[in-house]
């Protein structure tokens, strides 16, 4: 039971990170109907920039942890958002209204460019940083002496995720920006006829997705403490899997899918084998898609003839 609780906590932490990345995929897919393959690499860049801010803080002598965290969050989000914007502007906007595969290929190209750019600019070796937040609460202890711990860092990750989700739900539901996003999602041509600036809305979507990916990158930098240029790929496909699992195009679905993938991964590693945890995640995805092709929370597609 204690072991299970611990895995639950770990899985939820991992799931929060996947969920935040998955939102970026699902929003882009919802609006322009393409898989943004470069999104995983944007997340990697977010992690690198957060790490860079941490190192600069150390050099400047800022050692108060809340200030460090706040700086990492704000700076990484702003600078990574610029990457999201640029990727869309360079590789996707010129291909709007083209064939369905053209933006997919340029997205894969963009992903290759970003990861190799980071490899060139920062070197191929993994970058370790010391843990920023240590310690945690002891929740329970079994008779055998197994301690279930909820780390302070894990609490920070949960709180940040919840705050972001609430803020995001508000943004989509109540603000003019969210309204124009939903309008574009339903019918891009009609939205532009009604005075919504479609190009700007899509840019904003990419900026928002990249910002959330940057938060996820910051969390992962703090949680695992090691970044390398290739980390975007695996996290990216798992997050995309999460988005599909939850029902692509649906924001709560992306979060739910992310948490499920995180839990499956943690539980599978704990009770079966670490090697095959990715196989388990994909296996569940295949099963869900076979029996519920639109994902858990997705709306069924209406086939038009």
């Amino acid at each position: 039971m204690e072991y299970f609780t611990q895995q639950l906590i770990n899985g939820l932490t991992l799931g929060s990170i996947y969920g935040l990345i998955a939102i970026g995929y699902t929003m882009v897919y919802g609006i322009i109907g393409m898989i943004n393959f470069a999104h995983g690499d944007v997340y990697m860049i977010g992690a690198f920039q957060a790490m860079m801010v941490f190192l600069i803080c150390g050099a400047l002598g800022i050692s108060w942890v809340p200030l460090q965290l706040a700086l990492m969050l704000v700076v990484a989000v702003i600078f990574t958002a610029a990457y999201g914007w640029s990727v869309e502007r360079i590789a996707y906007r010129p291909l709007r209204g083209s064939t369905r595969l053209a933006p997919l290929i340029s997205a894969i190209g963009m992903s290759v460019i970003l990861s190799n750019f980071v490899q060139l600019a920062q070197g191929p070796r993994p970058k370790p940083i010391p843990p920023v937040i240590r310690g945690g609460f002891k929740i329970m202890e079994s008779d055998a002496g197994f301690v279930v711990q909820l780390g302070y860092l894990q609490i920070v990750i949960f709180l940040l995720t919840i705050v972001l989700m609430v803020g995001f739900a508000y943004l989509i539901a109540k603000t003019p920006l969210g309204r124009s996003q939903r309008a574009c999602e339903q019918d891009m041509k009609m939205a532009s006829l009604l005075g919504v600036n479609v190009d700007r809305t899509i840019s904003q979507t990419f900026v928002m997705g990249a910002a959330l990916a940057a938060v996820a990158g910051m969390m992962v930098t703090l949680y695992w403490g090691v970044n390398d240029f290739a980390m975007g790929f695996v996290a990216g496909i798992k997050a995309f899997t999460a988005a599909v699992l939850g029902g692509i195009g649906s924001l709560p679905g992306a979060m739910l899918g992310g948490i499920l993938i995180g839990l499956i991964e943690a539980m599978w590693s704990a009770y079966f084998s670490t090697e095959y945890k990715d196989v388990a995640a994909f296996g569940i995805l295949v099963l869900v898609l076979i029996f519920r092709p639109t994902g858990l929370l997705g709306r069924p597609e209406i086939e038009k003839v």
Partner: protein
Amino acid sequence: MATMTMTAAKAAPTALTVALKEAGMTAFVVFMLCFLMIGFETQATQGQPLGFVTRFGAIAWGIVLVPLGRVALVLDRYGHAMPSLIGGGIAFLYLFGGAVISLAFDIPIVAYNEHIIGSDLAAAGGIPMPFGDPIVDAIFGLGALYIVVMAVLTLRRTAHGELTLEAREAKEGRSSARAKRLSLVLGPTLIVVAIIIPFTPFSDRGLIETLTLILTYVMLGWGLNIVVGLAGLLDLGYVAFYAVGAYSYAKLSLDLGLDFWASLPLAGMFAAFFGVALGFPVLRLRGDYLAIVTLGFGEMVRIILINWQVFTGGPNGISGIKKITFFGFPFERNAPEGTVTFANLFGLEFSTMHRVLFLYYVILVLALITNFFTIRLRRLPIGRAWEALREDETACRALGINPTTTKLTAFAMGAMFAGFAGSFFAVRQLFISPESFVFIESAVILAIVVLGGMGSQVGVALAAILLIGLPEVMRELSLYRMLAFGVVMVLIMLWRPKGLLAHREPTILLRRGNGRKKKAGALA
């Protein structure tokens, strides 16, 4: 153009103000992209926490040069192409020329910021250039070349006047027809060139090996073309079948002692069987769902290859795979008693080139078989059903075509050719490991199909030459190779979104439309 005149009438911004605004915007974006990622370089030293050094000089140059390029493009838009032509030309000659001179004559390049810091002015005997790295300077030089080309195009356009809509459509039609004619001529030419190239004086071992690699990807591209180009199924895990083929040959040759020619059909069968087994549960899915599931399958196969140590050798892979034979006659210098080697058979002096050349012709024949098969299949009912399915699945279902079995045959066909290519890969490398079957391989093969112009056989060959050949030729770029690969991928897509040779139309078509009605009428 219309929107531009409208905004011009509203606020009447001059070219200069627009250029300044855009330049400022560009400078801001460049700063945002580069400040943390290029401005600081992490340095890991043994036993010490991660540190960093700053490189602000390079960013400063980026912030100056990139907006200048932007200004040139804005000036083009307003018809003042002359200044951007001159400026771009000078920048190109300086940046690219300097980089070429440096690489050709081995003269070091000195970064300007090193001068600014003044670390060692006297020792700076090289060419002063903004970035101090010939390749980065050359990249900026190519950017300048782009500006020159855009300026020349603008000058031509202003000389000839704008095209009307009809003229543009006619031009597009012409270019599509030209692509078709081109591929009719280009196809046989390429085949002839491929056959005679080993006998030309400038062929050497390196060239033949590069060509063998390119042909492997051409074959994979043609195989995937059946799935993506003809049947319209987006498969992101194609490399899984390639892996099945490679491991089949490795296991069959090592455990059962079969030689390449006996294993080849078996490997194809195994891969096709895998295609059916993986495809059956998921082919009901549409479009992007299928893409992600195939991607997942590709990753699953790779993970299983890594972890099923007993059968696949795990991450170490399988080595010592049997070499190819000339239909039973080995390519050996010293054959064991009683066997006739290839050299003995034809009374030739033994040479290691024999095997290399033979492998080259084997993959050429295999690739051409794939091509021939695809072309013939397109004319069969099953091929037409694939194309119809690509265009409209619902209509197909209404016409009584079973989408699942039709898709499954496409999947199995594509997988079979990947299996052949995989066992060829194993017999060429003599060593295989899961490293060779990562997602990026699937992405490369898909990119070859899409860049070639979906459904165009010659286009696939051209794209393979571009994407696989160019990086091989530019091995000296080493670290920048993959970066260049990504850039080429994005640029080709932006330049020709429908692919290099795009004339995607069903093989058999009910003729309609203005220009073609006459033909139909004449037939009637």
